């Protein structure tokens, strides 16, 4: 269903995405050959993301948000549905076309300590990304790396360092720089700030906003923390048990949550103002 002329296609359009995992069977179930439905980690998920937009995906553990994110770039192969980048379904492509589509959607992971190859210097990792995709400017390694480090507000002195010498926040910046090295149109931030100290988290949230403003990069911001999503996302989709239970502009969803789960999440949010304690019972 590609758009014909006129209206621009969404940058990302996800339709009826499904991912099933085999069920773990107990011995009794195996012996009696009980028929069990496979577990749907992603159960008919649909949403869109436009250029320059920041969409928050909220949900607890088991909501399927990380599995869904991995399905988008085919780190895990989805079992059903379509993932369209500018109208082209990424599920239908291999090799060169797949690589090009992947280039446009980059991912930043949660764990700053495992997201970078410990044996590669920062500069080498950034340059490699640009070289593999033949990005313009990647012939001049120093300039290329310098520009990328600048985008994430790190000085050039970080280029010869290895990840082990960097702090958690600095490593996440390098991960983001590596994602930017291939000129993506969209970044999927999978709990990208969850493992960081609060003060560092605030810096990284600012960075995402800066990147959106300077480069027009769209962000799919996945987090289990509603307040973090509130700080960056224009729209939000709440996931539970593999489904999107509510979606809309962030302010609207927080002010008038329609779904029970969303309401429970909002009620449970620990407000930092002691005057707003959980009502006793």
């Amino acid at each position, binding site marked *: 269903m590609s758009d014909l002329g006129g209206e621009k296609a969404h940058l990302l359009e996800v339709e009826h995405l499904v991912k099933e995992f085999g069920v773990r069977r107990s011995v009794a179930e195996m012996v009696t050959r009980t028929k069990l439905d496979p577990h749907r980690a992603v159960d008919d998920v649909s949403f869109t993301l436009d250029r320059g937009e920041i969409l928050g995906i909220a949900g607890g553990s088991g909501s399927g948000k990380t599995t869904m994110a*991995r399905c988008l*770039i085919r*780190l895990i192969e989805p079992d059903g549905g379509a993932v369209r980048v500018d109208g082209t379904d990424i599920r239908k492509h291999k090799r060169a076309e*797949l*690589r*090009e589509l*992947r*280039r446009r959607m*980059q*991912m930043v*992971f*949660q*764990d700053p300590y*495992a*997201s*970078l*190859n*410990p*044996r*590669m210097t920062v500069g080498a990792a950034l340059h*490699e*990304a640009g070289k*593999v*995709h033949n990005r313009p400017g990647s012939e001049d390694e120093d300039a290329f790396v310098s520009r990328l*480090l*600048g985008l994430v*507000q*790190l*000085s050039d*002195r*970080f280029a010869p*360092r290895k990840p*082990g*010498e*960097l*702090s958690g926040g*600095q490593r996440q*910046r390098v*991960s983001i720089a*590596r*994602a930017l090295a*291939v000129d993506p149109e969209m970044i999927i931030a999978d709990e990208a700030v969850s493992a960081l100290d609060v003060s560092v988290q605030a810096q990284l949230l600012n960075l995402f906003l*800066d990147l959106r403003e*300077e480069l027009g990069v769209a962000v799919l911001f996945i987090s289990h923390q509603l307040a973090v999503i509130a700080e960056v996302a224009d729209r939000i989709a709440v996931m539970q048990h593999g489904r999107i239970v509510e979606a809309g502009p962030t302010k609207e969803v927080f002010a008038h949550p329609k779904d029970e789960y969303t309401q429970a999440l909002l009620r449970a949010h620990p407000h930092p103002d002691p005057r707003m304690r959980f009502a006793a019972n």
Partner: protein
Amino acid sequence: MSATPATPIEVTPAAARPRRSILGRIKRWPTSVKVGAGIVGLLALAALFAPLIAPYGPNELDPFSLLSSPSSQHLFGTDDTGRDVFSRTLYGLRLDIGLVLLVTYVPLPFAVLAGALAGYFGGWVDMIVSRLADIMISFPFIVLAIAFVAIVGPGVEGFLIAVPLAAWALYARLARAEMLVIREQPFMMATTALGYSKTRAILKHGLPNVIRPCLVYTTIDLVGNLILLSGLSYLGFGVQPPTAELGGIIAEGQGYLLTAWWIATLPGLVLVLFGVGVGLIGEGFSDRGLSRGEP
């Protein structure tokens, strides 16, 4: 609204401290590694320069000093045909270290690659590699070595074939296990997300991280192979006399243990010393977690 901050984040003073110098890195090695490296280094140098250091040739006869005890003339004494035991030890060490390095490190890249591929791809690649490895490991190593020697005949060839044939399986398994862990790390997933080819992911990103524990294991393996080679030579299956080889010298000196103890004992001590040195290195590195690349 606020503009992007003008000053970029600078490298902290701690990170700016120069850690690049080799000397600095060596200073931070744990004591056990330093001691071990010292011992091994000394012995290796002595072995390398054996032709220059050894006062006599390995088979040079001194008919006036048969079975003489250690003296300033003959540091380790002489054997029953008047050969200087010290010189023989040096030449023997040279041969032993050379052979053992060959047999431990030459097959290593192939074994590690096989294991890494098995770990990365799973499926039938894993099945083939793992089943082959299982078969090799299920043979008792010594039996395998002796069987080969029986087929190929006495001499060093048997050793050179048997050891890699059996040892590759251990390294392949080790590499496979490491790869299974590394494969799940976000930085490996990032290589897929970044559109890197699988070849690049495995060779450039996976292997360098997989190989460290394997290298640590080679230190244990080195000693084992050295003992094996000496053992085979001692039994008459490995290096043939009159070529100087530590195990062979010990075998020749066995009959004189009570009368000319130095022939068997002193070369034996050198063998033990080498083993201790290598062991200290391996243990020191793996204790400190350097097998996983932590500083």
